[in-house]
């Protein structure tokens, strides 16, 4: 029962944050609400015994990405003060499509007949072994990708006159 309670609280923060992310009119708020959602998601991970992922989520995602985004928001700001998100285009149409997707997903989940039992979770040690043995090549490829992204970002964002 306590699990359900915890889940409900986490879901509330995750979905509530998400809702504010897509509706808030202040860009700084948008990013901060995203942080709320991400931290709540980390809690969800922890509840699923994925402690390592939860830690990564907070450290790297919430810590790194949110900071980065805040920087971007402030850099893109024209004339000081708050940064407006400039509203929505055709919100009804978007709501319709998103609702369609949600409905379809829900239908699929209900029909899925997924296993409801909870076997042993993957331990962090095992996760490390998986990453470095059978998945070593993708792991290394990923580091190359990150490097490429970093260089790409530098090239893109560098001022031509600087």
């Amino acid at each position, binding site marked *: 029962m306590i699990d359900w309670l915890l889940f409900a609280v986490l879901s509330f923060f995750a979905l509530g944050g998400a809702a504010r992310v897509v509706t808030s009119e202040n860009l700084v708020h948008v990013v901060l609400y995203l942080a709320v959602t991400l931290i709540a998601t980390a809690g969800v991970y922890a509840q699923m015994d994925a402690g390592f992922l939860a830690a990564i989520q907070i450290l790297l995602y919430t810590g790194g990405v949110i900071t980065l985004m805040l920087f971007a928001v402030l850099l893109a700001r024209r004339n000081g003060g708050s940064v407006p998100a400039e509203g929505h*285009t055709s919100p009804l149409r978007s709501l319709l*499509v998103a609702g369609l*997707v949600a409905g379809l997903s829900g239908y*699929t989940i209900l*029909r899925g007949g997924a296993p409801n039992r909870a076997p042993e979770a993957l331990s962090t040690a095992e996760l490390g072994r998986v990453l470095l043995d059978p998945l070593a090549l993708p792991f290394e490829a990923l580091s190359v990708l990150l490097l490429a992204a970093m260089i790409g970002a530098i090239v893109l964002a560098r001022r031509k006159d600087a």
Partner: protein
Amino acid sequence: MPLAALTILLPLASFAILAVFWPIRHTGRPAAWLSTLTAVASFVIALLVLRDVAPMGAPPELWTMPWLVHGGRVIAEVGFRVDAVSASMLVVVTCVAACVQVYSLGYMSHEPKPALGRYYAWHSLFIVAMAGLVLAPNLLQLVAGWELVGLCSYLLIGFYWAKPSAGKAAVKAVWVTRFADIGLMCGLVLLYVETGGFAWEGFSWANPGASELVAALLFLGVMGKSAQVPLHVWLPDAMEGPTPVSALLHAATMVAAGVFLVVRCWPLFEGAETLLVAMSWIGAITALVAAITASVQTDIKKVLAYSTCSQLGYMVAGLGSGEMLGGYFHLTTHAFFKALLFLGAGSVIHAVHSNEMGEMGGLRKKIPLTAALFAIGTFALAGFPGLSGFFSKDLLLEEVAHGGQWGPLAILLFVAGLTPFYMMRVYCLVFLGEPSEKSNHAHESPLVMLAPMALLAIPAAVLGFGAGSFGELLGHEYHFAVTPVGAAATVAGLLGLGLGYAKFGMGQLASLELPGLAAFVRSGPIDNAWRLCWERGLLPVARNVGWFDRYVVDGLVNFSGWITLEAGDRIRRLQTGSAHDYLYAAALGAVLIAVAGVVGGVLA
């Protein structure tokens, strides 16, 4: 892997380096040296291989790896097969190739550096292709090599690509040989269908009639490659390439590949009696027609080209006798003395800067070494007693007589007299008589050109004495003996030499004309016949096909183009350029796919 593999791998390395690393290729002379060194190394290795090879009949040294594996079944193999036939041919090929590459260091020295590198890259590729052909363990690899040497031939004929005639000659060579290769391909497919493999021995025919058909189809390809009448028309034009190329590809080795194919696949040809008779006749007629044509040419390289045709006809006629030793031995000796003659001609051309024999004359005093070496080649080709050509021709004619084919034999004997005649004509017009204006400025070629010629002159002179051991290697008993046929050929040869000297001995330009026939032969009757076939036969068909193509096929194409344009006009409105619209489209697409999945799941 057998030692012989190195004869492929070394030039392959050279070719790869020159092909990939263009800065090395563009250095010119270093690139040339690289290629030449690998060619010489290949020659040495080939000699070692020949020394250790077992005589015919012993099991061949085989090294293969599977290729074209389909569903666990090996359809074909690639690799090396070292036996008496391939080892001896390998020596011929690498020897001539090495000599020609060394010679080219001098002959091509005035070429721009990138062109020189390109030239040598293709020469390396040629050795790879030719050795791959010679060492092939099955017909499929042989045909692969066959196509590759054809490619090298195309590239090297068109080496002076800025010259339109060179480009045309290269294309003509490809078209004619390709036309003949249709037969070869059909033969290959039929062989596979009938026997389930590409081997030329070691199986039994389920359908005995097919055996001869396969051999006949393969022989069609041979006719193209080895320039048999009427498919010989490409070979004289191929002289547009540099002279060393003519010596290597279009005299000694590549054109002999056709004859080699027959020798190699001898188990297929041996029993095909009707085909053998046809081969005798085709070979004899080729020998005759080409020899007559050679007698009236004024371009020294054209004479030698027609002479090559003629001698290839000799070989094919010899194989048609049902014995392969004579034809194969003649191939070997011919490779040496004809390469020598071509290199000699190259040396002459190098000296006087002209191909026309009318502009030469009296060169004996100006370039004595070339003259002497050319004389060895001339007399060897003429079948002068004691020189290599004498023995191989004798052996070949003996076999034809033994096969009882009197018609071809008579023609071949006549050609045995005609050959010395036209060669004497060349020798007299070029080296004897009064020097022409151009001859006066002639200089002897450098050592780098003379040395390979001298090396080729040795086998051209004395290889004939090796006929016995050559026969032994191929599992045939052969002892030289004076026979009526041999005597007749010798007399005809001497007669031809004498007649030629009597007629052209003074080297006068006036005596260039052979009365009567000359004008007709020089007009190229066979080329004209092909042209007529082309204009009357193929072009109307092509025109009709063209009409169909233009109005029906193009109509369809144009219609589809119009539809696309119209549709594009309509659909363009969808392209707003706004990122959001695209996102909607993507999301809706995903929804559609999901719906399809769900519906499919429900239905299932």
